[in-house]
């Protein structure tokens, strides 16, 4: 069962020659074969590398099998963004993220399912059928990077890559009981990612442990000459933030009293005790009502979608605009409306002003607290079929994440509770000031190592 190894264990054991790459790939292939049909995890598989594992001993990622969301362009490998418009699109170039992964010795074994164009929070709006949650297949995996979270939960890869605009890494990680890290906007390149909302899109890792996320971020982060919005901020070694003390750290707790969180409030609150035990100071913090972030995000995202998806005309690639699914049509058209003459000021500019209020609010909170924590999602994973006819489904599910997304802040979700009856998880979202991914990793790693909620630490670790 080598597919159950974490990335760190994989790298260590390959290095010590206690496992062989060939055996690892045999188990990965078997895990895919056993589950893909039922759960609909991958949209395409790289059969060549699955059959003949590429030995990359000299490289840091040593040939580890990695799954990538299907909105990252991969040269000579179909990239559909789970949309029928692009069901025949084979990119002629490689996204920076996948290029960097490969240069570091990672091997892309397949492209994972997602909400079409990343427009959703369920992976139920994929044009190629929904993905099911590996923890309990009556439930959805969340989204839009639902396929990437599900392949990690199903041990059908060693680690995965997703992308987040407002919740699309952290929310599926939460619903599938994995770790999802959304870096600061501009920390990881967007070049070659099929654009959704360019002012918030952030690629990042979805992994089995916090340590694995730190390892992958080391290889993803940095300035990219092909993405002018990436920052020249130096990239630290994120693994240095592991196994650090939390003494005297100030943690502000957000959103526990808002409507809709009643059912999980106690379970979540109980988990905060460990921070106090480790010497941190934990107290409730007052933030701007996240309900306002729904409106801001909706207007900004729809507006940016309408311009980003204007390029799909079926001439240079893909099919014509009659092939868009219902959700994409809704979003493009609403964006066109809110940006149109007479409405831009009322909606778009207003949303950008409220975005400023969120930035100011976070700046104030970070004068008092080092990090902010809250539940990732207002609850556990939802049942299959729940998105039907719910036009604001994703926005409501992602409400607790939208404030940090529109502010460009880094955030990480990790498992903080498991319901023994349903086998479903709650996620904890940890947010820090810009470029302080290290701080988030430090807090998350300490939580993970001092609580029983990480399933790989519990069940698979020898």
């Amino acid at each position, binding site marked *: 069962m080598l597919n159950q190894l974490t990335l760190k264990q994989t790298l260590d054991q390959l290095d010590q020659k206690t496992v062989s790459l060939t055996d690892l790939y045999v188990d990965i292939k078997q895990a895919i074969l056993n589950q893909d049909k039922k759960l609909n995890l991958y949209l395409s598989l790289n059969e060549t590398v699955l059959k003949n594992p590429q030995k990359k001993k000299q490289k840091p990622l040593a040939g580890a099998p990695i799954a990538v969301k299907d909105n990252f362009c991969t040269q000579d490998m179909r990239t559909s963004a789970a949309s029928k418009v692009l069901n025949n699109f084979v990119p002629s170039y490689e996204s920076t993220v996948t290029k960097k992964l490969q240069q570091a010795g990672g091997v892309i074994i397949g492209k994972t399912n997602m909400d079409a164009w990343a427009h959703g929070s369920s992976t139920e709006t994929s044009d190629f059928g929904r993905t099911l949650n590996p923890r309990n297949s009556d439930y959805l995996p969340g989204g839009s990077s639902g396929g990437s979270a599900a392949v990690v939960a199903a041990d059908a890869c060693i680690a995965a890559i997703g992308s987040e605009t407002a919740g699309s890494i952290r929310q599926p990680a939460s619903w599938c009981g994995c770790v999802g890290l959304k870096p*600061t*906007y501009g920390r990881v390149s967007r070049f070659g990612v099929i654009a959704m909302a360019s*002012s918030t899109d952030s690629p990042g890792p979805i992994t089995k442990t916090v340590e694995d996320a730190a390892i992958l971020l080391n290889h993803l982060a940095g300035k990219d000459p092909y993405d002018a919005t990436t920052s020249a901020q130096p990239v630290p070694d994120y693994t240095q933030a592991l196994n650090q003390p939390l003494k005297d750290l100030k943690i502000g707790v957000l959103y526990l009293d808002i409507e809709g969180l009643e059912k999980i409030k106690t379970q979540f609150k109980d988990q905060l005790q460990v921070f106090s035990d480790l010497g941190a100071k934990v107290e409730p913090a007052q933030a701007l009502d996240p309900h306002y972030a729904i409106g801001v995000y909706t207007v900004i995202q729809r507006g940016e979608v309408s311009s980003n998806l204007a390029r799909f005309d079926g001439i240079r690639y893909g099919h014509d605009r*009659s092939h868009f699914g219902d959700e994409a049509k809704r979003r493009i058209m*609403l964006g066109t*409306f*809110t940006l149109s003459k007479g409405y831009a000021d009322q909606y778009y500019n207003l949303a950008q002003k409220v975005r400023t209020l969120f930035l100011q609010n976070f700046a104030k909170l970070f004068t008092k607290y080092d990090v902010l924590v809250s539940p990732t999602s207002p609850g556990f994973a939802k049942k299959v079929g729940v998105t039907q006819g719910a036009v604001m489904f994703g926005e409501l599910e992602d409400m607790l994440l939208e404030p940090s997304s529109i502010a460009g802040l880094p955030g990480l979700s990790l498992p903080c509770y498991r319901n023994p009856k349903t086998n479903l998880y709650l996620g904890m979202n940890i947010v820090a000031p810009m470029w302080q991914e290290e701080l988030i990793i430090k807090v998350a790693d300490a939580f993970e190592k001092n609580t029983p909620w990480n399933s790989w630490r519990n069940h698979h670790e020898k």
Partner: protein
Amino acid sequence: MAKTTISPHQVKHVAQLANIPISKKEEQELTQAFTETLAVVNQLKSLKTKNVQPTHQVTGLENILRADKVDQEKMFTQEQALANASQTHQGYFVVPRIIEKQHA
């Protein structure tokens, strides 16, 4: 709270602007979806924003330019550029006619 009412006629106009073909049934459904969504968005109007500057970019980077040099790495060959086109003709993309033929 001010309610924004959207008419099917407006939806049809937006569909034209966005170049998205929609059916009569979709026109009705989208009218409903627009109204529902704008009701959420309208909540923003209750906040005081008169003296607030809008934020378009969160990291504060400005004037990021690249060198004015041809980057061969980033360039497609003609073959690559045409590889995904639905229709090509002698190395060109074929596009649909958008100007009506003149009738004599």
